[in-house]
């Protein structure tokens, strides 16, 4: 995260960075940024979320113990702040995913590879969202339309595909940084590769780097 700054760059910063990168808070932050910046739903971070939950729970218990054992209130409040920050990150991560699920529920549900990116609770959520939305559309509008126009996904019975399902715009641009010291990305065959160092920020067509997210680049 911390960037070198001319000759004044702090020695040992890189060591620290590697250390920081191993904390789940830092990983969660990266996951949140990636999820927020990407137009489509990304793979759910099962292990990371599981670990974060466990640590948060453990910390909640610890803070409670501290309070009961009459520990110095300053220290307790600092632990509480750390806990709050971790919870904020976790909730933001889960929330941004829910927002995407609500927006593109039909699209995500019909596409196997997208559906497999969801956690089990998220799958239940989408299913219920779809049921509710279908029920709502049917009651308010569709039941009043002629027979041929009553689908929630197709404009009419002769539509060959789901032509009423909003999809995320993958022809959009995202800002990204290299997650390593240096990365060279082959974007389009005809163009020369995009080379990025740590301090470079690039606005890149999302669909050409989507497979590199979390591997070579992180979104900012």
């Amino acid at each position, binding site marked *: 995260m911390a960037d070198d700054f001319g000759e004044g760059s702090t020695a040992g910063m890189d060591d620290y960075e590697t250390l920081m990168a191993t904390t789940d808070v830092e990983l969660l932050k990266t996951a949140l940024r990636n999820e927020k910046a990407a137009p489509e739903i990304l793979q759910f971070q099962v292990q990371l979320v599981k670990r974060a939950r466990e640590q948060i729970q453990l910390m909640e218990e610890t803070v409670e113990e501290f309070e009961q054992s009459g520990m110095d209130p300053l220290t307790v409040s600092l632990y509480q702040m750390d806990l709050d920050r971790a919870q904020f990150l976790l909730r933001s991560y889960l*929330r941004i995913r829910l927002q995407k699920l609500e927006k593109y529920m039909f699209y995500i549900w019909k*596409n196997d590879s997208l559906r497999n990116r969801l956690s089990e609770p998220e799958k239940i959520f989408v299913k219920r969202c779809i049921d509710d939305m279908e029920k709502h559309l049917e009651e308010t509008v569709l039941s009043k339309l002629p027979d041929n126009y009553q689908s929630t996904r197709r404009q009419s019975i002769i539509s060959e595909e789901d032509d*009423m399902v909003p999809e995320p715009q*993958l022809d959009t641009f995202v800002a990204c940084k290299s997650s390593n010291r240096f990365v060279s990305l082959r974007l389009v065959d005809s163009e020369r590769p995009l080379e990025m160092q740590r301090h470079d920020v690039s606005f890149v067509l999302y669909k050409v780097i989507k497979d590199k997210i979390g591997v070579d680049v992180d979104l900012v």
Partner: protein
Amino acid sequence: MENSRETGSTNDGAASSQNANYYDIDDILAEEELVPVVFYKSANGVKVDPTAEKDCVEKGAKVELPFWLAQELYLRQAVSLSIPTCFNQNTRREIQADAACVDLKSRCPYFYEFGCKIAPLVGDRTIGKMLLSTFQMRYKEILTKAHTTVYAPASKSLAVLTKEEISLHEAARSSMAAFKKWRIGGPRFQRASVLGRKRKPTE
């Protein structure tokens, strides 16, 4: 499925991305723009022109129809399309002369979107190029200054912008405004808008 979409240029990819914003109000309004058509066959029981005496459209009648209708009639060989006035040679000459000054808003508020939709139908490959060069010139002249220049609300340069250009300008302006607000300070612990809607403790 994902792969075919990624290549993008297949017919499937194009079709799906077109329906992808089915509920987008601007996409809907862009299809309301009028296209001049000539009817190949007569149509009974139809009154296109409210001042017409009879409820029918004669073969060879010249009418202006909204894009969404013109397109379907065209695909069924019922009408022929001509290029809407906002893409004709006169407009193009004006744009070439001084792109930033042309009042595209009054000509067609959905100039770019409409252009993208009409180009394949009228089979005019120059429209696409014209859209790109128009955008390029106007972008450079007017839009890139959106972050730091404060235009008066009734400013002349803003009055000629199309819907998309206004959105671009507004995107820059409001993002900058949010930053300035943060910089000046104020309540440090502001609730995110989503957090504001907290569930009531009804249980």
